């Protein structure tokens, strides 16, 4: 797909507390600044850190603003059905934020499930990955899954890099236009501890992501 410079790009990032949703969102926004984007607005949820809650963030940018303010990006929240890209660190969280998706949405999902307390107590049921995929295919055919947690554990012996791997995966969809991979690298060096591992994770996500997307 081709984007115009005046298009508003809408990204929903979802996951659970402690997975690095906010870090992932910040990296996209700061990288967009490096890419000299005119308008960036994003909204993030604070206050539930580490308490197992559902976390969602919106990030939006417009490479080139119109003269007319009525046509421009004005709100940090995405309208229902208007997301171009969903980055989901936990599968069922994609469904929870589904109201922002439509036929134009590409979905990248981490396969690793994190059950809420009602699931661990065996009082509610977690839908199967097959069922989640089936619902998402009701939106669009661009539904891609990766086991980013497994990749992170394999390459780094910890799950800290899941969000960066997922960022690489998201880049592979082409739904983060005008931001180059170098911009992300610069930002990772400026803002994250352990930049070597994180840049490596970014490329792992990108390359594995390209394989998954090309296969579909």
């Amino acid at each position, binding site marked *: 797909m081709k984007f115009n410079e005046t298009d508003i790009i809408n990204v929903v990032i979802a996951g*659970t507390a402690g997975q690095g949703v906010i870090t992932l969102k910040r990296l996209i926004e*700061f990288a967009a*600044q490096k890419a000299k984007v005119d*308008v*960036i*607005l*994003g*909204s*993030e*949820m*604070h*206050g*539930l*850190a*580490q*308490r*197992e*809650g559902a976390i969602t963030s919106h990030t939006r940018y417009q490479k080139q603003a119109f003269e007319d*303010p*009525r*046509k*421009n990006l*004005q*709100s*940090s*929240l*995405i*309208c*229902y*059905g*208007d997301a171009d890209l969903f980055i989901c660190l936990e599968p*069922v*969280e994609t*469904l*929870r934020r*589904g*109201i*922002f*998706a*439509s036929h134009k949405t590409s979905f990248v999902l981490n396969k690793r499930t994190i*059950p*809420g*307390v*009602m699931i*661990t*107590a*065996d*009082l*509610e*049921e*977690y*839908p199967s990955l097959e*069922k989640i995929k089936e*619902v998402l295919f*009701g*939106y669009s055919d661009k539904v891609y899954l990766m086991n980013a947690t497994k990749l992170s554990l394999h390459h780094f012996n910890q799950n800290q890099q899941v969000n960066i791997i997922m960022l690489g995966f998201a880049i592979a969809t082409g739904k983060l236009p005008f931001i180059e991979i170098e911009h992300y690298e610069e930002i990772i*060096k*400026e*803002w*994250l501890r352990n930049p070597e591992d994180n840049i490596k994770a970014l490329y792992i996500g990108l390359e594995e992501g390209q394989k998954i997307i090309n296969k579909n």
Partner: protein
Amino acid sequence: MLDKDNRFTDEEGKVLMLGNEAVVRGCLEAGISYVAQYPGTPTSDIGETFQKILNEQPKLREYLIHHWAINEAVASSECAGAAWTGCRVLNPMKHVGLNVASDPLSVIALNGPNPGAMVILVGADPGSLGSHQEQNERFYTWMLHFPCFEPHTPQECKGFSKLAFELSEKYDTVFEIRTSTRSAHSRGFVELEPIKKGKAKGEFERNIPKYNSLPPHAINNHIRLYERIEKIREKIPELGINRIISGTNKTGIITSGMPFGYTMEALNQLNLNDVPVLKLGMIYPLNYGEITNFIKDLDTVVIIEELEPFLEVKIAEIAQKEGIKTKVVGKTYFPKYNEFSTGLIATNLAKIFDKTPSIEMNNAIEYFNSYKEIIPSRFPTFCAGCPERATLYAILKATNHLENTVICGDIGCFVMSFFPPQECSDLIICMSGGLSAAIGMSTKTDQKVVAFIGDSTFLHTGMSPLAEAASYDSNVLLFIFENNWTAMTGHQPVLGLTEQKLSIEKICKAIGVNWLKIEDSYNPKHLISSIEEALEERGLKVIIIRRECALQAHRWRMQQIRKIEEEGRKVQRTYYHITGCQMCYECARILSCPAIRKTEEDGYDTMKIDEDRCVKCGVCYEICPNKAIHKSIIDALDVEVPFREI
């Protein structure tokens, strides 16, 4: 990684900031020298940002002080004290914090902050995204006369903060910046301007009429306050903070803050490009001429604002007084509750302008509604290893699942205790409201009355109800959760307690609590018998649960382990594992630890401990009725690193 956040050191350029960060930057550019606040979402990270930059730039300490205050009322008076020596001060609080601070602020507003300047920052929370309720605290600006800015972008957060200090000093008036959970935590571009050094020292000059708002000065100061507000009202058009997006439609819109962004995007979606919009940067006071000029040629003006009609009432009043026939509408179409969104505004504007909302949006809503039942709930809950969770378990066991028992909950992490599966809180009022309600309730019922309070809340406003409960020997069992941190808002220190300068135990004794036990919920059997004993007694009983917040304790322990391993020494490791599980669900539903989940092994259902989530508190091991949870210690002869004592 950069060693300093250059967004708070650079003197020029364009940077990305959250609304709260932009407020801090605005304060630095305005020459601030004192900040005091009690933490509360969505304003806690203002204090964290000040703390961070004070650590990164120690030179700022020469003139800038940030205090975590003991409560909001204390913070406001602290700020006034500093302002009255001639300093510029910021006093952040959440919307309900303003209820607590309103007592001192009602007087500080009368007196005026001169020779210094005082800005209060109030974080509203439409949609109750991080609070127990969503009150529309805008009405305080009207009642206590705080001229109030409502920023929409981080750029406005910075610009309005800076302007507020100038005006506050010039007009001897307390100004307010009103953010919301959404605007405080939205990121956007901010243009930097030079940072100004604040006053290191000032001096208080005696002025009895100004600083003693008692009769007759109280009335004079009230008159003087009105004069100042009128001067500010006249000045508004020159400030350039309200703006008009012009259009020829006979129906116009007045809005402010975050709803402005949703409104603009909704108008664009509906192709309503001729609707004039007045965006108010200042919501109190309003300039009559500005409002009149905008509405006089319209047939209808639609006021778009979250929660109760604040602007709508004021604008209708102006129209009525000026004899303007324009119809003022708002809450006829828009809800008085919950947060707004572009979708909600588009749907309602479509009705007003007889348009059809976008098909994509309607399809999105319809499709989402068709499957939403399969989404499992995921509410916030206590972390693995939380001492509060283990206490709730002990209470459930000691009371036979709350039989004939009422739990008066409170604010803190345990505000989550009403959620299933534990459902261990019957009511919530406000900070320390649980104990206060328990005092009254216990006189009128024979049920067992239990109340909760956290350590930070105990110091905030909890000592007073405890003193009353002790005086009346109220038949209440109070749990004080001494976990050493203001945990819910992100682990700010509990003033006095975290640095171990004060003792809640000693305070309780001094207040006159005779039945007092210190318990550790990691020893649940002992705790259960103490609760049983307490509930047999009449009169006031206090159990202090002394155990550090598991998140902080786990972080500390992992740090120690890393340090010891770096020194080349080995550390003893403890593991818990489940074999022979009888599926009684004691661990998963009554303790309800999130690190334990059901799985299948060799065709049988069993509970299993998630190794990466377990913090080795050992409570499940202590409570398993079937002895199916086992403990193994690996390298038992190596260094043991237990949780630290507090």
